[in-house]
């Protein structure tokens, strides 16, 4: 069947086609015009030190490639680079000490901002324990374990706390946030752990410090080599999202990339986390359990008490705890799962930025102190009314 015009004469049909082509031209011209207008009106500040662009400037930038965003963050040197690009590096680790109370029992936290906030809360609420934190923004569990292995308690910790969070657990097989968080990429890198014949193996990233990163990204050949290495070892690496192209200059294309990113991330999440919780057969959960097991073993070898802090993100219920429970139980690893203090289904327990409220952080810190003191064989100072507090056996 052919496409026929309903018009009776061929000249009318021709006029219709001409009109359609003209309309198509106007549509394309208008799209180009809108694109250019968006780029002009909502142009993103070029200064890497500008950390608070407007809402719409951010909105139309989400879909810019990671590589382009990382390039923009990089200044002439450390002092001229975006502060976020300096965070989270293994070399040196970003440590928050509490020098005032060094005589107390030191507890070192490894993980994301939740972990740092918990450390701060512990400092506020405990007079027996002093918190020290080693953190990175949005750190995944593999980053946290890599940091622990490099720090090993800083040589002075009595207790070490490894933090895992349900929202970013599906990203445990990545090497840098710039592969899985294209909207807000950060350049720091992480060790990639994987289970090989039942044992935990590691792949170290191609660069671990801001300076190494600068060097690697300054030279196109080294940059390509570094990105290729990450691509080969990071399950979420996608050239379309990471590599910059001329199309980064189109706001429409950035919207398309952003949509693709959302879809990709959703697919990864749903492949690991479904209606029944985390899939125990997924690589991510197998790796997470192996990381927890290894962490406990290494900590104990170093004479430290291992504690696992499970951050149950809003909407994830206690499923991460469920995915790790057998390992925690069988290895007698002390742990604190946030669901015993803050309901993961009640938005009131969380801040709009997804952190726990300060009051809940304090409650969690008290619960953690109790867990630590039980694990140390000391009677907890604070009695909790809540049942089901996740203390070790």
């Amino acid at each position, binding site marked *: *069947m052919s496409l026929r015009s*309903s018009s009776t004469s061929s000249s009318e049909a021709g006029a219709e086609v001409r009109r359609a082509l003209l309309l198509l031209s106007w*549509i394309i011209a208008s799209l180009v015009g809108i694109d250019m207008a968006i780029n002009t009106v909502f142009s993103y500040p070029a200064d890497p030190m500008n950390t608070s662009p407007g809402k719409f400037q951010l909105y139309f930038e989400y879909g810019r490639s990671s590589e382009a965003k990382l390039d923009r963050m990089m200044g002439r040197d450390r002092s001229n680079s975006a502060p976020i690009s300096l965070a989270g590096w293994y070399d040196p680790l970003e440590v928050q000490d509490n020098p005032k109370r060094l005589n107390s029992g030191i507890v070192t936290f490894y993980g994301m901002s939740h972990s740092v906030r918990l450390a701060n809360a512990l400092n506020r609420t405990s007079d027996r324990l002093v918190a020290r934190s080693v953190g990175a923004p949005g750190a995944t569990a593999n980053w946290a374990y890599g940091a622990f292995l490099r720090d090993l308690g800083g040589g002075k910790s009595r207790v070490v706390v490894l933090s895992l969070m349900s929202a970013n657990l599906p990203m445990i097989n990545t090497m840098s946030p710039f592969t899985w968080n294209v909207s807000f990429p950060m350049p720091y890198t992480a060790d990639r752990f994987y289970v090989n014949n039942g044992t935990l193996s590691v792949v170290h990233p191609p660069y671990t410090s801001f300076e190494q990163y600068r060097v690697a990204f300054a030279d196109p050949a080294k940059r390509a080599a570094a990105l290729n290495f990450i691509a080969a070892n990071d399950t979420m690496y996608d050239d379309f999202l990471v590599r910059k192209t001329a199309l980064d200059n189109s706001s429409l294309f950035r*919207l398309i990339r952003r949509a693709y990113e959302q879809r990709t991330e959703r697919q990864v999440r749903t492949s690991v986390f479904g209606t029944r919780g985390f899939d125990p057969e997924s690589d991510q959960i197998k790796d997470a359990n192996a990381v927890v097991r290894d962490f406990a073993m290494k900590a104990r070898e170093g004479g430290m008490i291992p504690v696992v802090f499970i951050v149950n993100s809003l909407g994830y219920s206690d499923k991460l705890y469920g995915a790790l429970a057998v390992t925690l139980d069988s290895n007698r690893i002390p742990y604190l799962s946030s669901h015993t203090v803050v309901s993961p289904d009640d938005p009131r327990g969380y801040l709009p930025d997804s952190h726990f409220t300060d009051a809940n952080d304090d409650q969690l810190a008290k619960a953690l102190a109790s867990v630590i003191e039980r694990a140390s064989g000391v009677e907890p100072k604070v009695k909790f009314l809540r049942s089901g507090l996740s203390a070790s056996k």
Partner: protein
Amino acid sequence: MLFNSPDFLVFLVIVYLAYRTLPFRQQNYMLLVASYFFYGWWDWRFVFLMALSTAVDFWVGLTMDRGKLSVRERLISSGFLVLSGILFLGITPKNLFSASPGQPAIDPQATGWAFAGTLLFCAVAYGIYETLIRLDEEKRRRTCLIISIGTQLFILSVFKYFNFFVDSMEVVAKEAGIAVSSIHLNVILPVGLSFYTFQSMSYAIDIYRREIKPTHRFFDFALFVAFFPQLVAGPINRARHLIPQLVRPRVLTFQDSTRGLYLIILGLFKKVAIADGVAPVVDQIFSSTGSISWADVIVGTILFAVQIYADFSGYSDIARGVAKLFGVDLMVNFNQPYFSRNPREFWQRWHISLSSWLGDYLYKPLGGNRGTLGFTCRNLMITMLLGGLWHGAAWNYVLWGFYQGSLLCAHRSWSEIKGQSVARFKGPLANIAFIGMFFALTCYGWLLFRAHSFEQVASFSSILFSDFGNLDYGGALPRPSAIIGLAVLGLMEITQFRQGDAHYYQKLPLPLLGFLISTMIFITFMGMSNEPAQFIYFQF
């Protein structure tokens, strides 16, 4: 497969290209296969349910009208049903591509049961057929109609309403102090079940009323039931409108194609940019467990009114647009419902395919308005209560139906008592006032519709009065795509309303039309980064 997914785009391109290369008959076969594939994308097994519904109504239609089926008609439809049983119940397509030994693609036991079960069904059907053809004509026609409606309602009852009725009976029994142990069916609601069963029912009823002749081509009829653009969320097309377009070669005009593309763009714009952009705010307010203010209730309810309109009319636009690409004209389902000045007008503009279905097959057979005011109101109330229940197996839908029925009765009574006195109020200001007042009433109906429990209805309704004027809004803002998109859609709707022509855009100067379309495309891409949500009406 969602209309707003890349999967559908790929599917549509392939089907369209295949359609363009095939001759007429093959086009229909291809569209039928494509429609079953489209439906099977959600759940392969439920395609069998549709095949069963199709076979039954095909037999019933011919038996009712002609009193007999030819051997060929019998063989084709029976063979189709048996093959469908094996294909859809015995085979799991996703396992075809996975090498897992524990999950075979073909389940021999299920295949055996499907084969035996469908054969047995056909044997029983022929037994009934032999009895039917011996009956006198009127008795045969009536029995056939009962079989058709009974089958469709049975399918609906089992998959949609069984657990609801059991739960409701359990509550009543417990209130009466009777201990009961209820039975629940562990079934999920097949997508679009209410739409295609209603469409099939209209076919049998129209034949019974001698308004149409049945088709003797099984695959054309199967395509009428399964035609993918309208399969899962309507419009519910009448056989008299759709079948004639399927049984004859279609002429694909250039105008139809461009109109189709425009409708697809418009529908995606409504759905992706606006409906999905306000959905998180609505969800947040209606799932809140904290304190809620008057402003929260008002904003949440108005945004839900926006969401359900953009979502459902967006789906209908896409469905109509896609159908036009295949030379098929589906009925208009929405005609600017929020410009209605009274409930009667609203139901002539909102979900037109359902309201006209209910009007033709329920309200009028009940007696319509051929009686006293009380009699008319009774009919209106029954129709709207069942219309509410059609939307879902939950009491809040029944309550919504009751509310809509009450509005219609109140309007009817007012019109009868006051006669044409309201006609005095003319002019733009009066129009705006009536439209505004009725929009407020419509929104309250949406509150009933969206609430997840009676307790929430009571709580939100109480806030509307007890917390009146409290502007302390605690909810989030809609996505930028929704805010900008709503402004653009508002302008478009007002222009259309003022001009009284859905094709108003064709009169715009080309540069302006080009700008309008590209604006919709751009805002749709903005909305694409939102979390895509299933179309609301799929669950019905």
